[in-house]
């Protein structure tokens, strides 16, 4: 068994992580403004999950993006690509200046993460319901090859509409893939409506539990709590783990929070300044 050397799982520094999450949000807002691209609110709602993952949990080295023993993080909700790009660039997977090319002609940073093009992007996503099956395949390849890495997949709540998510959920449970952790960014909105008024997700934790997962609800903006819960994978339950992360769409900016117009809207220059001020970045 090739055991990955895991970072000491020390207590997360919640204060430092919080500051990092604010910086990440500031960057995402700048990118959305510069590109006039959609999905800003979806990116803001998962900024704390990405911060916990990349600044505390994942055993990854930006200089060795193809290390077979690395932990895998799959942004299954690929429409939050801006959040992933900002994270990867800040971590040094590619130059921070490349973020200026987001959605620009000829660049690598398309509106959804590309395949086999950008270091750190584990899977091309954008069509929903693909990340978890891919993650199951990755986790099983680790088991077959005796590599002990972990797989994290970040899903949107709307993504739980897709049948393939539940196919994979049953499969992971049957295979006892305890190295897999799903985080559901449960911001209660999908593209055009309240998620529970579109397809009934509630009770979402119970659904994942009924599908054989060790399922927990968590505050998706408590970056310290997220870091602790994700760092515990595998947690000894013998089951894959689902973290139903309660979030607010557009989190961090008062005039964007829980306002679904920001699923598609991009901010003006004035709004960027205002948002940065609220995030304590001005």
């Amino acid at each position: 068994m090739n055991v990955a050397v895991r970072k000491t799982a020390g207590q997360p520094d919640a204060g430092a992580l919080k500051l990092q999450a604010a910086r990440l949000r500031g960057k995402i807002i700048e990118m959305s403004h510069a590109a006039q691209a959609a999905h800003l609110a979806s990116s803001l709602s998962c900024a704390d999950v990405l911060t916990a993952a990349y600044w505390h949990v994942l055993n990854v080295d930006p200089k060795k993006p193809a290390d077979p023993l690395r932990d895998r993080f799959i942004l299954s909700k690929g429409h939050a690509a801006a959040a992933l790009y900002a994270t990867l660039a800040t971590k040094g997977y590619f130059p921070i200046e490349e973020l200026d090319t987001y959605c620009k002609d000829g660049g690598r940073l398309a509106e959804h993460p590309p395949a086999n093009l950008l270091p750190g992007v584990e899977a091309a996503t954008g069509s929903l319901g693909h990340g978890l099956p891919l993650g199951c395949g990755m986790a099983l390849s680790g088991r077959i090859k005796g590599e002990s890495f972990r797989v994290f997949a970040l899903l949107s709540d709307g993504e739980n509409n897709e049948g393939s998510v539940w196919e994979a959920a049953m499969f992971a449970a049957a295979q006892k893939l305890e190295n897999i952790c799903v985080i559901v960014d449960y911001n209660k909105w999908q593209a055009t409506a309240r998620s529970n008024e579109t397809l009934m997700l509630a009770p979402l934790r119970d659904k994942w539990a009924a599908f054989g997962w060790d399922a927990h609800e968590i505050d998706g903006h408590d970056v310290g709590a997220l870091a602790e819960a994700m760092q515990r994978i595998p947690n000894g339950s013998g089951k894959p783990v689902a973290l139903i992360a309660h979030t607010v769409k557009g989190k961090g900016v008062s005039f964007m929070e829980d306002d679904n117009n920001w699923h598609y809207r991009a901010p003006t220059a004035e709004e960027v300044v205002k948002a940065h001020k609220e995030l304590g970045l001005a």
Partner: protein
Amino acid sequence: MRNAFADELAKLGNEDARVVMLSGDIGNRLFDKFKDKHPSRFFNCGVAEANMMGVAAGMAMNGLRPVAYTITPFVTTRCLEQIRTDVCYHEAPVTIVAVGAGLAYSGLGPTHHACEDISFLRSIPNMVVICPGDAFEVRAALRASMQQDRPVYIRMGKKGEPVVHSAPIADFKIGKAITIAEGTDVCLLSTGNMLPEVIEAAHKLKESGISAKVVSFHTVKPLDDACLKDAFARFKLVATLEEHSLIGGFGAAVSEWLADTQTPVSKFLRFGTPDAFFKKSGEQEYAREMLGLTGHQIAEKVRHALA
């Protein structure tokens, strides 16, 4: 073809630790030889083909050589988006093996027929499409696919079809058609499980004094350019034969090739299934007869075209 596939897979499993078998809850006992030796590399993925294809892609992206297998419509159209996005977009070396191509499972009804899969799969970038003509071609195609660093689709018939080749095909090459019989008057380009009917047609033609060349054109993508050039240069009649829709299949691919290469044609016939579901009850032989795809019907139509 089916049993040859299972047998060859067991051998490949012994030779190559990267080979993983994923089944969509079919093939009861068929894979026992593989399972007994490599239980950790066999997965019954249940009746959940979208997940199976995604899992296969995830494995292939991490250095394994998964084979994903079930009945043709379920391992192609049922999970087409996973094939396109997870497998082909990522250039993940997954080998998709389908059983029951065309009308092989005619008796099970149109839910189990597969006369559109070549059309769908060959239009996806990075995909190789192979339709073996007999059990030996299945073995060779499977073996060759494991040496590829890209997605491969292998479209099999069922079990117990006539075996055409007399021995393992040592020089099998993806994209290189195999000449089964030489001839001078007509060139019959057969793909997939139609091969025995086409050989039968050649026999019938011989009785009428017509010499037919028979080719097992096993790879529909990429096409064998040299073979096509030679066929259209030398023969006054060339025919494509497939148990697949005339829309988007092998014959359509050759038509595209003709247009794109500006190749002059004297006579060109396409044999395939029509733009309709075959709704009648009945086995494959009956369905072929109804659709004009049996050896004697092919011979008749060729004779007529040459007259």
